[in-house]
């Protein structure tokens, strides 16, 4: 794939003796949705944290847009255009939904010259920009509501809205469907497709197999920190090694 936006090469993240991610490689093309799957403890979130700059890789390389991104702090990755959501939602609970989005609109105001960071964020144009993003995720009618009082489905959308406000080229979605009911899942599925159609690459971690298989162009399966399989959803779901990782040896069930 010549136009890979993200290229993970032999990535390892070790915590002491624990090899959370061990020699994992994959690529993500521009405008692609790649599913990162695997049972609990497979190293999916650690992989995400390495890509988004939370943990420095123990070894290996993360190339973003052709540049080595190892050790770039999370705010540096955000600047490069990597937006992310969290498995356990991390909303700014004391702020309204609109303010949550505005935080991510700050961009260059948080860097460089001091006087830029002393400009005001309480402007009509900025609020409008945030509202536009809230409209995309379907939360416009709750823009003034405090995020602390919102149910999980809305929080997941707030997180996606915040990530979108960074104008990302790569969106990392960490289980953005978990804890949601069916209609919400359908809504976010549509949203993710819409985001991809605007040219954003999406890397998603998902436990809900039906969702992951339907949404992903390709999937990478991790188990115990290592890459187990990679390919089209249909290929991977019939891969015996994958079925074994999910259901155990001797299981005759259907992973999908």
């Amino acid at each position, binding site marked *: 794939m010549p136009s890979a936006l993200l290229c993970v090469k032999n990535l390892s993240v070790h915590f002491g003796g624990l090899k959370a991610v061990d020699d994992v490689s994959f690529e993500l093309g521009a405008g692609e949705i790649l599913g990162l799957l695997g049972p609990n403890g497979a190293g999916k979130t650690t992989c995400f944290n390495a890509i*988004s*700059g*939370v943990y420095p890789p123990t070894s290996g390389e993360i190339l973003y847009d052709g540049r080595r991104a190892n050790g770039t*702090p*999370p*705010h540096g*990755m*955000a*600047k490069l255009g990597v*937006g*992310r959501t*969290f498995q356990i939602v*991390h*909303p*700014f*609970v*004391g*702020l309204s939904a609109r*303010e949550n989005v*505005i*935080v*991510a609109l*700050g*961009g260059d*105001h*948080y*860097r460089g010259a001091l006087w*830029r*960071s*002393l*400009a*005001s*964020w*309480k402007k009509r144009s900025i609020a409008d920009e945030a509202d536009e993003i809230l409209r995309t995720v379907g939360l416009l009618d709750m823009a003034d509501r405090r995020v602390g009082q919102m149910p999980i489905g809305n929080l997941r959308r707030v997180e996606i809205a*915040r990530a979108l*406000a*960074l104008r990302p080229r790569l969106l990392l979605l960490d289980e953005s469907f978990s804890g949601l009911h069916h209609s919400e899942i359908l809504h976010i599925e549509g949203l993710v497709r819409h985001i991809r159609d605007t040219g954003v690459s999406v890397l998603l971690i998902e436990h809900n197999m039906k969702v992951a298989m339907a949404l992903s162009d390709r999937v990478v399966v991790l188990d115990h920190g290592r890459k187990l399989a990679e390919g089209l959803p249909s290929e991977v779901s019939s891969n015996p090694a994958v079925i074994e990782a999910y259901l155990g040896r001797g299981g005759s069930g259907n992973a999908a």
Partner: protein
Amino acid sequence: MDYFATVATIIVIQAIAACGLNVIVGYAGQISLGHAAFFGIGAYASAMLTTKAGLTFWQALPISLLISMSLGFLLGLPSLRVREDFLAITTIGINFIVEAVFVYTPFFGGALGLGGIPRVAVFGSRLGNSQFLALCAVFLAITLMICRQFTRTWMGLACFAVRENETAASSMGISPVRAKLSAFVLGTGMAGLSGALYAHYARFISAGDFGFPISISMLSMVVLGGMGTLAGPLLGALIIGVLPEVFRSLMDYRMFLYSMLLLLMIRFQPGGLLGEQSAAAGLLKGILNRRRASSA
């Protein structure tokens, strides 16, 4: 009148410092137990500059502010890299170190302190007690305006984000260290201003005026009034400033009372008197509503 002016002046001066602490604790969510150190740095800077270098209060003020903010920057830089409980310990350490430097350095007057600090003069005439109170009130108003303005800047918003969730804030493009540091520098600048005013109010200062207990009482003001609110520190400074005047006999138990107050507030009213879900504000509203209902 003089008694009133004296008590009111100290309350206003402490309110300025409490506003500064509120920027650090309330806006940026970084616990500081060493705010009195920067209060002291401002006081000593202004005292030294006016008594030894012969400057006027007005010439010394910008330099004192610069000194307290620079030291706030230097001491904040390593401190703000650690999280929560470690930051509390580090800031306590800063308080004790700064106090020790004042006590053990002859240059700063040592244990004897610094005396002979001139009164503040405006257009050549020295201010009387009530005029000085008015001057302090003007500075408090400016401080409050700056606080209010800060919440409207991107850096202020970044501080809120860091307070709410540091991990999420950093993945929104915010450098947490930079956000915390700007709150810290602004807060220590306000402490410095408060200290400078205090030096010219007391006209004699010694290291004991800026010890750890003062930091605790400043934190009590912020927590009592409402962390992160604009007027909270003001109300807190008022209550904590007036209480010892009313209950002089309880002076010896002051620290005990502050600690109790802090514990009870954090347990039952973490938002403070003016904060969210405040029982006091709710009660007041309830009474007002009932009055309105009965008069209608």
